[in-house]
């Protein structure tokens, strides 16, 4: 069996995903946080055609719409928490699926490394109501097109 190594980019994405979860006060690293983590990578942002700030803003818009749907109007505090929990938050089951999928994607192309692109393919395989899929849909990202471009054997 091919030993799969992790790359710096993947590690970086998982770290920024944890930071995004923390920033929003979430207890678990969700697929939406992983997507935000990926958008810290300029290559991923370019491929999807959306920026990190856009994604954060649209995510907040979805939050406000959800609150309005149940008749509530509360502020969404988009500021990092002043106190950092020492524990790294666990992944949601959706995020664990993405991690599994990224391993499959890496194996499928005989890559010895799980790269950020494989994580991105994992994210792009999610379907609504998955939070990352909802966010991509709200930003009108061409998911099928992005998948096709990632799968193309260039580079």
């Amino acid at each position, binding site marked *: 069996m091919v030993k799969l190594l992790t790359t710096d980019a993947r590690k970086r994405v998982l770290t920024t995903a944890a930071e995004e979860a923390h920033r929003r006060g979430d207890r678990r690293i969700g697929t939406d946080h992983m997507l935000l983590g990926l958008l810290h990578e300029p290559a991923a942002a370019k491929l999807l055609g959306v920026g990190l700030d856009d994604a954060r803003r649209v995510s907040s818009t979805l*939050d406000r719409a*959800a609150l309005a*749907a149940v*008749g509530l109007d509360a502020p969404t*505090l988009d*500021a990092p928490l*002043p106190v950092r929990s020492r524990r790294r938050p666990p992944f949601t089951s959706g995020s664990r699926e993405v991690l599994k999928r990224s391993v499959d994607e890496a194996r499928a192309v005989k890559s010895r490394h799980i790269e950020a692109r494989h994580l991105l393919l994992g994210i792009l395989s999610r379907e609504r109501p998955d939070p990352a899929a909802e966010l991509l849909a709200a930003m009108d990202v061409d998911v099928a097109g992005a998948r096709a471009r990632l799968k193309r054997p260039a580079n």
Partner: protein
Amino acid sequence: MTPTKIFPELVSEDPAAGLRAVGVLHRLAEQVEAIHVELARKQGWSWEQIGDALGVSRQSVHAKYGK
């Protein structure tokens, strides 16, 4: 009695919106908690006093926010 009859204004036909709203409220609670735990510590509250105010044990609040 259905939930609709109790809190008609809190009910959405769309579970995706309703569940997302719950997540937002959890997050908001975490944010308000973190801000005020820090404030309480700065004002000299003990972990025990903070735990009592939050309705949790001293240990759990210290494990979460202690340095």
